[in-house]
């Protein structure tokens, strides 16, 4: 196993370190490869190792008491998976699962804190990374005021649905998100919720509005 110093430099936490400095700390990292579907972290458990995505993509999600999964984000190359419990000594607020084959680099908490003491610029940079993450989460919280987003998504469906033969509108979830002023993941959640409520049916390549009146009521309530 060879820890890639070039990759370490690309991790936002350590981007302020020189190649020589990274070379001295690379022995503190471990590497782990997971297959599709493998769980890397479980919500509610404690963490003593901070993981970064070295290859592949990881699903970050929470699970409700009823077992409903809510995807918060997709973690890409260089992103940290569990910095919150590492820094506040709490438990994982999220679960993380490999979407395909994934390689993660891990560093033990005590080693990370030691690096921050030895290189204060890393601690300062970490603060900046966490502040950026907080800003994204504030926006997501705002969007997850579900009533409003559901209404906007319902309106988009009503405005773009067609009957029978003739030209039909095609939209991706990303396009719907842009139109609704929200995140793609929130649109996906909204569509799932509307299907569970029986207002729409999600088919392969198609959204069927099964209860037009109900969607109109949702739009009305949220305005």
């Amino acid at each position, binding site marked *: 196993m060879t820890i890639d110093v070039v990759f370490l430099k690309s991790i936002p936490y350590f981007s302020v370190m020189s190649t020589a400095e990274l070379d001295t700390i690379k022995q503190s990292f471990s590497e782990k490869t997971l297959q*599709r579907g493998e769980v890397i972290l479980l919500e509610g458990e404690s963490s003593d190792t901070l993981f970064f995505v070295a290859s*592949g*993509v990881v699903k970050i999600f929470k699970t409700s008491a009823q077992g409903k999964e809510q995807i918060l984000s997709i973690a890409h190359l260089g992103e940290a998976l569990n910095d919150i419990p590492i820094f506040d000594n709490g438990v994982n607020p999220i679960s993380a699962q490999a979407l*395909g084959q994934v390689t993660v680099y891990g560093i033990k908490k005590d080693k990370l804190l030691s690096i921050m003491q030895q290189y204060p610029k890393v601690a300062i940079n970490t603060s900046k990374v966490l502040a950026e993450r907080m800003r994204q989460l504030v926006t997501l919280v705002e969007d997850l005021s579900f009533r409003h987003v559901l209404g906007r998504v319902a309106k988009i469906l009503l405005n773009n649905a067609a009957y029978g033969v003739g030209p039909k509108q095609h*939209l991706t979830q990303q396009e719907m998100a842009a139109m609704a002023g929200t995140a793609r993941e929130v649109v996906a959640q909204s569509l799932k919720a509307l299907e569970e409520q029986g207002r729409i*049916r999600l088919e392969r*390549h198609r959204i069927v509005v099964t209860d037009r009146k109900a969607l109109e009521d949702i739009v009305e309530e949220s305005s």
Partner: protein
Amino acid sequence: MIEMPIVDQEKCNQCGLCISVCTCGAIVLVKNRITIIETEDCHWCTNCEAVCPSGALTCSFEIVFEEE
């Protein structure tokens, strides 16, 4: 012809993330080009679109009212 996800080759950087998350084998790399294979096994999970860092993959939905 089966509707399948569409890849914009100009945006695609051949990172292969789409291939790693596809559970139905619809996405392959052929001569360094992401290629979509028609298959009814594709259930439109849209994971490929979700993970693409460059927005090269799109899984669009046709939106229709149910006929009464």
